[in-house]
């Protein structure tokens, strides 16, 4: 099985280092009973490390899955600013 990190490596991004277009509320995530975001996100932006949810927006493909997957109100979802984020070469 091809590792997801390797597959994400095929993507071109213009990462906005100043602005995270998605943010999570760690206090809410601590109490989350399911952490479904970890399973649902196709870009492995959500991971669990020692039971703690870690979120990175840099690999995000802007699909919107986490905005639905999170039913606890932790995820605040926006599009990246002007032209930033993923740039598909094939789409």
């Amino acid at each position, binding site marked *: *099985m*091809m590792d*997801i990190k390797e*597959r*994400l490596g*095929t*993507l071109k991004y213009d990462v906005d280092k100043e602005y995270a277009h998605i943010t999570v509320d760690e206090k809410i995530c601590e109490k989350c009973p*399911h952490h*479904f975001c*970890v*399973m*649902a*996100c*196709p*870009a*492995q932006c959500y991971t669990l490390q020692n039971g703690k949810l870690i979120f990175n927006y840099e690999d995000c*493909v*802007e*699909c*919107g*899955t986490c*905005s*639905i*997957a999170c039913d606890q109100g932790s995820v605040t*979802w*926006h*599009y*990246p*600013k*002007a*032209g930033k*984020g*993923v*740039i*598909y*070469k*094939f*789409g």
Partner: protein
Amino acid sequence: MSDFDAIVVGAGNAGSSAAIYMASKGLNVLLVDRADPPGAKNLSGGVLWGNDLAQILPKWQSEAPLERFINNKKLGFLTEKSSFMLDFKTQIFEENKVGYTVLRSKFDPWLAKKAKEAGALVIPGITVESLAIKDRKVIGIVESGDTITADVTLLAEGVNARLAIEAGLKRPLRDSDVSLGIKEIIKLSPQKIEDRFNLKNNSGVASEYILGFLGELNVGGFLYTNKDSLSLGVVVPMENLRENGITHSYDLIEMFKEHPSIAPLIEGGQVAEYGAHLIPEGGLEMMPKLYGNGYMILGDAAGFAFSNGLVLQGMNYAILSGIKAGETAVEAKLRNNFSEQSLSAYEEKLNSTYVLKDLKTFKDIRKVTNNPMMYNTYPKLLESIMLETLWERGQPKKKIRDVLSSCASNLNMGRIKTLREFYYIYRRM
């Protein structure tokens, strides 16, 4: 006096089609997209049916960046070790050449360029902050703190319709509204593609699969041929992924690729791009009010997509909704009336096209496409019937009738329940 007659948010199939139509009829149109080049955030499985595109771009077949025309459609039922394929190939598709595979990062910038050629002002790399609303009327968009006004704003912002949702014009998405599509572009030489898929003269194949080897997961697969690559992916309903709760979505596509009937087709191919996109599959249940004072909602943002297990379409619905919204805007301009009542013509027009007719005809289709039996039982039933009838094992042979009943009972399928199930599917599909 507004800055523009019309502002279109989103340069996908819906938005660019609307912009082309309106600009070609003389409207002063602004088309904005958050990607640069326009459309570079867009992704779909990749088969475009171009009947509607021909209305606004009659020469699309010779001008558009297309991959291969489809003359072969396949539907496959996969179990752990077997595949059962329906394989339909026809010269009629070859003579008409209406369905093509496309790569959106090539196709969408071309479509946006056509909007520019028609006279629209196209500005890529703009993420609209919010809708400008005054006296309960949408009067344009807000970008970098500035308000740009238009008589009518067309929201073609895609499945994650943030502007419409934040303005209260559409409810937020729920699990039951969407499936998650995950896709890879796999590079392979044209020669290998033509040999492996029995293709020539730029012909192509579009295959859809029911994956019957993933336990309780209801996953569909697709595999389309491009010129020198394959578009391969999986589609899983969000509800079903949540119920399962133990499978990473990004592993599903790898499980599909490893299937014994898929692996040889992609062998030696390099993954050139990975991607994911939500597919609006909620039909009428997720459809927002399509128009109001100063706005219309188009394409994925309106939930216009269709899947019945045999076909998976969205781009054609987007294009046709774009044309109909464009027509409505042009007529509203003649009346100089962009009120809710004036723009209601948009929904009336869609009602007389397949866009809304299909959503109504197939309003219960998800009960079929999300039926667990379709994934965890029927592929196995087909496999066991084929083994019973085709595998010579030195045993006395059975009549088909007896094969069916013994295969069904081995899968704990009672006769009456099974007939009822088939009738249920037959009625809705």
